[in-house]
């Protein structure tokens, strides 16, 4: 298994090379005129003479061949220079490092409620198949699944912020931001809530959680439906299997039958879905970030795409591809741990 993991990780640079080459080529297809707007204000562009425009294109190397430009980008990448981010108004790498912690933090905290509770609900529904609790959970799932996130997010804001004042939007309060950026505050993990704990600032930690609660609630509500439905159907299938009957025929307690014999077998399809979800969470959630005014990778990428901010887009692509490759590797390893029939070679 170790050899398998190492091999997959060694493939990562190759994957990154391929993906960035594709995205880079696609972006270059826009042509030098469009590309120039990434460097010069559009209003200004209209006023410039053709000679001036040509000079600018030459200056930014827009007339060079694609491969030359890509190699130049790669060279800079190895020096740790991903270019200037129009969206972030700072170097791309720095802009991303400012946003990734907020995305990862949300993913980390949303993981348990979304996946854990989703599976729990699904198992509950399956063992009470066709009983009132099962119907209730299923209705809940359909309602949750049919809600658009921008509607539900606004409801959460309305109730828990406007009405109750519990869960404010944003990354953290202004006073918290001041402590967070003060020189005495040590950034160890770069995840604000964890660093708050490590610095012994419980008030800051609570403030971070209050700002996380709204997005987590929204994401949970929307994704529970999906995960509990997969879990429920997978469990129902497994509960009909002969080995579950064998386990019962041994005289095992129903709890052991469910938790030991049925659940583990039911987890394979759930792992696939939950894994994809976690990868989605890690790549940022554009709408939830926008509604709750969080500065995460989702919004950053969306803005970069809107403004034709190529440097930021390519940086985001690097980040997503890495998450995707490592995430899928973790899912594959989990499969092999859950089911001994799956061998990684």
């Amino acid at each position, binding site marked *: 298994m170790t050899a398998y993991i190492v091999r997959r990780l060694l493939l990562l640079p190759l994957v990154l090379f391929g993906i960035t080459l594709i995205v880079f080529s696609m972006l270059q297809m826009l042509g030098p005129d469009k590309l120039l707007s990434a460097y010069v204000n559009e209003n200004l562009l209209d006023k410039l003479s053709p000679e001036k425009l040509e000079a600018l294109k030459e200056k930014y190397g827009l007339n060079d061949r694609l491969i030359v430009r890509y190699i130049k980008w790669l060279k800079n990448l190895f020096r740790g220079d991903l270019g200037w981010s129009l969206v972030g108004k700072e170097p791309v790498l720095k802009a991303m490092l400012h946003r990734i912690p907020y995305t990862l933090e949300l993913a980390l905290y949303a993981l348990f409620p979304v996946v854990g509770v989703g599976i729990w609900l699904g198992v509950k529904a399956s063992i009470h198949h066709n009983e009132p609790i099962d119907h209730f959970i299923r209705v809940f799932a359909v309602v949750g699944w049919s809600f658009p996130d921008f509607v539900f997010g606004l409801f959460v804001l309305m109730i828990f912020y406007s009405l109750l004042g519990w869960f404010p939007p944003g990354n953290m309060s202004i006073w918290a931001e001041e402590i967070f950026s003060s020189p005495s505050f040590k950034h160890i993990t770069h995840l604000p809530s964890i660093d708050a704990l490590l610095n012994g600032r419980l008030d800051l930690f609570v403030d971070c959680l209050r700002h996380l609660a709204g997005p987590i609630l929204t994401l949970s509500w929307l994704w529970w439906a999906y995960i509990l439905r997969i879990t429920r159907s997978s469990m129902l299938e497994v509960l009909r299997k002969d080995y579950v009957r064998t386990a019962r025929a041994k*005289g095992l307690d129903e709890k052991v039958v469910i938790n030991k014999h049925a659940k583990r077998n039911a987890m394979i399809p759930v792992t696939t879905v939950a894994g994809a979800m976690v990868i989605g969470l890690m790549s940022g959630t554009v709408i939830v970030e926008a509604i709750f005014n969080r500065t995460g990778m989702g919004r950053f990428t969306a803005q970069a795409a809107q403004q034709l901010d190529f440097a930021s887009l390519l940086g985001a692509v690097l980040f997503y591809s890495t998450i995707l490759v490592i995430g899928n590797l973790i899912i594959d390893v989990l499969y092999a741990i859950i089911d001994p029939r799956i061998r990684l070679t």
Partner: protein
Amino acid sequence: MEKKKILEVRNLKTYFYTEDGVVKAVDGVSFEVYEGETLGIVGESGCGKSVTSLSILRLLDEKGRIEEGEILFKGKNLLDLSEDEMREIRGNEIAMIFQEPMTALNPVYTIGDQIMEAIILHQKVSEQKARKIAIEMLKKVGIPEPEKRIDEYPHELSGGMRQRAMIAMALSCNPSILIADEPTTALDVTIQAQILELMKELQREYGMSIIMITHDLGVIAEMADRVLVMYAGKVVEYADVRDLFKDPHHPYTWGLMNSIPRLDVEYERLNAIPGVVPDALHFPEGCRFRNRCEFATNKCAEEPPLVEVKANHFSACWHIDELRKTMKLAQEGETA
């Protein structure tokens, strides 16, 4: 010597409540099992033989319900026990093995883990002790290198080895009754013979009773002391195994025996009972076999009682005399 009754099933009725209606899968079945003997239950698919065995252990799925009857095990009615008390019986006093050893073992746990589970549960021993017992059991059922095999997963064993592991698991707590639901159906013929031989051997050693459920009269002839023939949820004939084969008293039993090809006769076509088992939702009134029976008359619209036709031989048919005449003619025709 009068043998001791260990299990007595009286007038068992197990119904399934489906969306299309009530399926009377087992409808008034009675039989008894004596200590150390093998009772065969034989019948076509859907005759209720598996449901009968699952009813004994109360392992029916959510749609199935035992409507009536008594299941007396060592004098206690199993239907009166609480779920907790029932768990004490399952795997400990009455164990069960199933048809498909591939699917009856949990693919994600080692066979050792699955055998030890029952031992730890019922014998309240430590894990090391349970492991020792499990290895001992694997050795007994003829699995080579049990110390190594105990840590293997079901998919690493062959079909025959898996069924041996299932038997080891079932017998690990030394049960009084082993219910074997088509234990050899999924195995090829040479392995079948080995498994049956093994079961006989272990029965001699442990002195347990076996309820052998099968559709295969060959297995019945090989294994059973007494036989219960079921058709469409009812008992049609119940007799000593020799007597049943020599002197069947029900057209269905006779039909089953005729459908076994014989080596000394040349056939144009193999004999078969015409028609199929009726849909469980719409069993015919009266004798349920009458729509396939060559002796059926209007009389058969009335349900025939299960009566003792001779010592320890029961049959439920209105036309036993007709059947015996025809059987005699057939026999004479053969010898002539």
